């Protein structure tokens, strides 16, 4: 489903900063029906990986393949549901406007858009607020609206950038249950998160990134075993400390 092969990405210099290597020879893959978690500290390169997969930015070298196609092809995004880290909508639109836009760009019929919109807005508790401008939504509601938009066209692959970001405990539990539900349905899911407990609970495999380098790829249990630690969280911290010492 996803092949991320020897990717290097450097952000160009700005007036006050020098070029910054965001990813250095990073490779990983994700097969159909799997759930992969990208974990790492701030600046590790998680969001860069996601932006590359969504073709918002382009790699300096290496190749990316999504279902055998380049991310540059807009058609491929008919099969992808993307959740950005921060919900950003044109300020005066409603959730329904955004859902209509999402459906129309995927070639869905008006009736199908209406049915799918109602299904997801009800499931995510936004049906009553569907006609309110998105700028009046709380952060959690905006995140849920983003989920509804991402899931509208029933995508096979979900790319979620910090899906639990800014959610209260109830909202977080709800989104966790939703992701678990989607995983049970056999969807392929790639997500990055700072909250390692959530990652441990949901993913089949993890990729640990640190300062643009891949440190580990495999099941969460293997990382804990490799570092002789009882949990993924401790295993991750131990691995990063080990690398930092060697630096």
């Amino acid at each position, binding site marked *: 489903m996803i092949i991320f092969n020897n990717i290097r990405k450097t*952000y160009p210099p700005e007036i006050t900063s020098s070029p910054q290597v965001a990813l250095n020879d990073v490779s990983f893959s994700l097969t159909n029906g799997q759930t992969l978690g990208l974990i790492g500290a701030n600046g590790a390169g998680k969001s860069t990986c996601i*932006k590359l997969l*969504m*073709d*918002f*930015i*382009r790699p300096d070298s290496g190749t990316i393949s999504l279902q055998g196609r380049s991310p540059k092809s*807009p*058609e*491929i*995004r*008919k099969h*992808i549901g*993307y959740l*950005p880290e*921060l*919900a*950003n*909508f*044109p*300020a*005066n*639109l409603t959730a329904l*406007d*955004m859902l*209509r*836009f*999402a459906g*129309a*760009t*995927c*070639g869905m019929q008006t009736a199908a858009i209406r049915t799918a919109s109602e299904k997801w807005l009800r499931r995510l508790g936004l049906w009553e607020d569907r006609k309110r*401008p998105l700028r009046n939504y709380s952060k959690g509601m905006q995140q849920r609206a*983003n989920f509804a*938009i*991402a899931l509208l066209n029933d995508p096979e692959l979900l790319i979620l950038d910090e899906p639990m970001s800014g959610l209260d405990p109830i909202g977080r539990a709800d989104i966790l249950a939703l992701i678990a539900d989607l995983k049970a349905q056999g969807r392929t899911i790639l997500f990055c998160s700072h909250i390692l407990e959530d990652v441990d609970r949901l993913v089949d495999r993890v990729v640990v990134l640190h300062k643009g380098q891949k440190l580990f790829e495999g099941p969460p249990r293997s990382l804990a075993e490799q570092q002789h630690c009882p949990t993924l969280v401790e295993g991750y911290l131990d691995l990063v400390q080990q690398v930092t010492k060697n630096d």
Partner: protein
Amino acid sequence: MTDTLCRITALARLVLLDGLRRHALMGLIALSVATQTGTLLFFDFIPRDIGRASSDFILSMAWLSGFIFLFFHGVQVIALDEERKVIYSLLARPISRGEYVVGIFAGLASLLLLLNLILCGLGYGSLMLIKQMVKPVYFSQFHLDPYLLSWFGLFSMELMLLAVILLFSGLVRGSFPVLLISLSFYAICSGLPVVREAVAQQTAQNKEVSGLSPILQWMTAVFPDFDRLDFKNMIASATPIPDATLTLINFGLTLSYVAIFLWLACIVYQRRDLQ
């Protein structure tokens, strides 16, 4: 092709809806309507040639409204997109970057068209009222063709500026730099004919200006002359409309500029990182 059109229309509709619900834009429309109806008070201060002065006032106010729309709403919608990352939410759908550029342009152009249609209708009503209120000697004639042509010229100029803003927003990050560069472009376009005229006069007087004239001619290719689309002086006077072929060439050139700027904007957006 149909799918491409559907995607562009969906994005244009989104931009149109967002604009129609924006309070600042409603305020701009209210202000424009107020200034247009203000012509009914303004003409009272004009001692003669009321028809020409009133039509001039109406078109100038409409140009000002379009200018405010372009440089404040347009620049914000296009340039701030990247900083606020709205562009990520839009391009996460199966829409190419070229379709994104055309869709945003189409949405903003529809809003501009709506604004101009309202003001054109209102301006026509105001002029007819004024014509009935004053003696024929002060407002002897009104020609509908140059009136409509003036609005079409105004709209064409606004479309060209919109395409320029889109191009600059692809080249530069942030709304303020885009605003400054686009304003500079407009200032050069407006000032260039004056400089060209001055140089031509000096050349006619055999003064040393060799080399400057061709440079100015070439600059006109990049910074088009907006005066060619200005027909407002013909609305209330006996001045004939320029030759149809020349008028068509001028409009054709303007539309070609719009197409070229849009094409360049598509290329820039397709190549750059949306970071």
